């Protein structure tokens, strides 16, 4: 299969249109990205980091692209109903790949100097600043999907928190997928958190139409000295959705990052998370919770690079697979020469509930420094029989006992969320999900 051909042809014929509807900073790297994509093509399953998800077949269908930036009518407040209630967040919308500025939260919610807005427009306003960060850690030479996104993305989200500013109120961004035809979306997010600044972000993906969506997303996040970033991603779309999301995070000294991906409903999802420690004393927690059934496919692929000493990384990914779901986790911790006093723990725990469900797990350690504490563990198994029996002896039915244990299993990840209303809401959603009362993007209905 040569699915890349249509994208190469598309770039050839639409290059001018892409350029004319985007910012110079984004256009400046477009041709380079095109060259990188053309050289690499779409990854086959022989490419180690893509071995569990077949990009060739996912990118083969002919999707529409909104390169001409036509106005798509939408009422994001329909999605607002999907919102996590009582979260008191500052709420923003991304309509497909564009920042939706017709429904901004009331003024005064964000501290001075904080910017949350259209990447394209901010890049036009502050080209020098954005150019310092845009397409820097998301290397187009190393990942063909990142190259494809860089070559086609025209807009997205820019988040900036200036030095020393702490944004108390969490910022919620709803990615709305809205289209009357099958659509490909290439979304771009740039997050810059300066020295000592703090922000908590919650990204929720919602599909409003029963169409096939193919989304590529590249997030670049720069977290400076003593800064803190929480990035929670909740995916609740539907079976016709394919999402390939590449997240790149760079941490400076004593910074802290919490990045949590919860997948409740989707079609095919592939999340790549690359995190690099550039300054000493930094800490990260990466986690993920996947609850999948039917033919859902969720692939989390992480790389944590300890380039400097004294950093701490923790990873916890948990999967509950039912039906014919396929789960994959490949985590790699790379401790570079000289990165002494590294502490790293990676855990991947999985439950398979049926014979048809499949789990692939690959926890990897690559270590070039001797004074380190690194451990990883991975299990695939079933619920604890002794616990099940204990619960039944107390009169709890087998079905209920299973639910309680599955719920407890998933909660270990959710309990790591440092945003209490979100945590509570997720406890609720996860329980609903396990009870089969949340059979597809029905968050909206639930809240209506």
């Amino acid at each position, binding site marked *: 299969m040569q699915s890349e051909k249509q994208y190469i042809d598309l770039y050839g014929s639409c290059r001018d249109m892409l350029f004319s509807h985007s910012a110079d900073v984004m256009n400046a790297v477009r041709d380079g990205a095109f060259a990188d994509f053309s050289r690499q093509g779409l990854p086959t399953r022989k490419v*180690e980091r893509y071995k569990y998800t077949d990009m060739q077949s996912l990118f083969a269908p002919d999707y529409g692209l909104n390169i001409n930036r036509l106005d798509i009518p939408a009422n994001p407040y329909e999605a607002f109903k999907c919102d996590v209630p009582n979260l008191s967040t500052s709420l923003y919308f991304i309509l497909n790949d564009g920042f939706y500025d017709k429904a901004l939260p009331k003024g005064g919610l964000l501290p001075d100097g904080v910017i949350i807005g259209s990447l394209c427009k901010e890049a036009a306003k502050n080209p020098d600043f954005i150019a310092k960060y845009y397409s820097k850690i998301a290397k187009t030479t190393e990942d063909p999907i990142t190259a494809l996104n860089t070559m086609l993305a025209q807009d997205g989200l820019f988040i900036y928190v200036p030095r020393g500013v702490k944004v108390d109120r969490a910022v919620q961004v709803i990615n709305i997928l809205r289209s009357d035809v099958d659509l490909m979306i290439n979304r771009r997010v740039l997050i810059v958190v300066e020295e000592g600044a703090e922000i908590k972000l919650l990204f929720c993906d919602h599909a409003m139409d029963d169409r096939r969506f193919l989304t590529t997303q590249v997030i670049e996040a720069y977290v400076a000295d003593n800064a803190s970033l929480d990035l929670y991603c909740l995916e609740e779309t539907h079976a016709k959705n394919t999402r390939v999301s590449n997240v790149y995070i760079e941490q400076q000294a004593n910074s802290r990052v919490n990045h949590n991906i919860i997948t409740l409903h989707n079609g095919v999802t592939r999340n790549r998370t690359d995190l690099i420690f550039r300054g000493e004393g930094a800490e990260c927690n990466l986690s993920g919770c996947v609850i999948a059934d039917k033919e859902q496919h969720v692939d989390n692929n992480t790389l944590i690079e300890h380039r400097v000493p004294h950093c701490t990384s923790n990873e916890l990914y948990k999967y509950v697979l039912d039906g014919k779901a396929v789960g994959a986790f490949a985590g790699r911790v790379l401790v570079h*020469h*000289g990165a*002494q006093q590294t502490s790293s723990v990676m855990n991947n725990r*999985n439950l*398979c*509930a*049926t*014979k*048809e*469900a*499949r*789990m*692939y*797990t*690959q*926890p*990897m*350690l*690559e*270590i*070039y*420094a*001797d*004074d*380190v*504490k*690194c*451990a*990883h*563990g*991975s*299990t*695939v*198994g*079933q619920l604890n029989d002794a616990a099940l029996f204990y619960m039944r002896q107390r009169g709890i039915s087998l079905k209920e006992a299973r639910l309680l244990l599955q719920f407890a299993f998933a909660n270990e990840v959710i309990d790591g969320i440092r945003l209490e209303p979100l945590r509570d809401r997720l406890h609720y959603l996860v329980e609903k999900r396990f009870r089969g009362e949340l059979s597809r993007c029905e968050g909206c209905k639930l809240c209506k």
Partner: protein
Amino acid sequence: MARMIIYSGIPSNSGKKVMETKSSDKNEFVRQVAEQKYEFGFTTDVHTEIIDKGLNEDVVRLISAKKQEPEWMLDFRLKAFRYWQTLEQPSWAHVTLPEIDYQAISYYADPMAKKKDDGKPKEIDPELMKTFDKLGIPLEERLALSGVAVDAIMDSVSVKTTFKEKLAEKGIIFCSIGDAIQQHPDLVKEYLGSVVPYRDNFFAALNSAVFSDGSFVYIPKGVRCPMELSSYFRINARNTGQFERTLIVADDDSYVSYLEGCTAPMRDENQLHAAIVEIVVKDNAEVKYSTVQNWYPGDENGKGGVLNLVTKRGELRGVNSKLSWTQVETGSAITWKYPSCVLRGDNSQAEFYSVAVTNNWQEADTGTKMIHMGKNTKSTIISKGISAGHSQNSYRGLVRATSNADNARNYSSCDSLLLGSDCGAHTFPYMDIHNDTAVVEHEATTSKISEDQLFYCNQRGIPTEQAVGLIVNGYAKDVLNKLPMEFAVEAQKLLSVSLEGTVG
């Protein structure tokens, strides 16, 4: 006392001065250890018939002709060779495998040739006997370790197999694979390539085309092999590769324990060793396979050394069958080796125990595959990696439970110990689980010997290098305990000695 020798390339250091824990001293000690010479690097001056360098169909035909093989064997080789020509050398392992010039290697070297040409019955050149004596492998049965039968192989040819007749009394066949092709063609035809087909991988295809000698073992139904069987491999000739092939068949209700050891002279250029070991285990049978691999690892600058590219696999075909691989890997410049188990039979059990030590510029990428296919199958993986110097040591393993493998169980534990700040320790486990009743657990840790541990030992009067030996042995104990007695003592000594003072 004559015994199988397992050595480290670092002679024991009785009388060496006690090292302080100050790091400058330790570095000095590391340097001293690194400068120790490989003890078994001598060459044997014996007339050896070596065919011209290069690899083509004629060479394959020549090897087959030299071994007076039947037509079917030549066909097997030619098919493998033609397939090999379509392949590329694999590059996925975490080693820097040099581009090997397969035309610069001679594929057949026979140190026994002179005698054979006389048309007289085989007599062993006394030089060869001396060589194996020097290696600690006496080929005269009266001198041999009691309870161990040896097939000694130098370069491309089996020099001698001891205790053949005694074993034959029980119906056990233990001979070189060359002899087996002549004398037991039906058995060889049935099993050769049935576990590792020539299409398996690049080096398996190469071996299938040009393999020279190796051992063949057949344990008949219900027979418990009364002694340890062993092969001893020695590369001697220059610019040759060794492509041995071992085939072990354990019929229903049988048992055998098999040992393998190997050495090579010191040479500046890399020597290629691409072997295949195939094991078939039938109903209720049990095979234990132990390896102490100490090919020449190259010098302290990473020059020379054996490229050890080996495919080892056992198929547990029968119900309740058992197979265990135990390996102590200390030699070779590059090791690429994954002794694997295919658990086809219901209730079959497989084990993999490994200690891999790398020092200087050695690179090892080793581990196992456990493919669970039968019901109620169980596998255990215990891997201990120890890296020192500038070496790279990787564990790579696959555990797969197919949809038929109900109640499959696997436990894997992979630990790495780093001695020094310039080496690497890596873990690449893969788990593919396609069955909801399977339980698979993997855990791995990476650590170093702590200053606290060393100080505690020092305070009790144990000098640092001895403490390191103790701690490393404790670390590797789970694996060393699995070795047969003859190996275990030497292996323990080897670990203590080879890593002394490498904590930097």
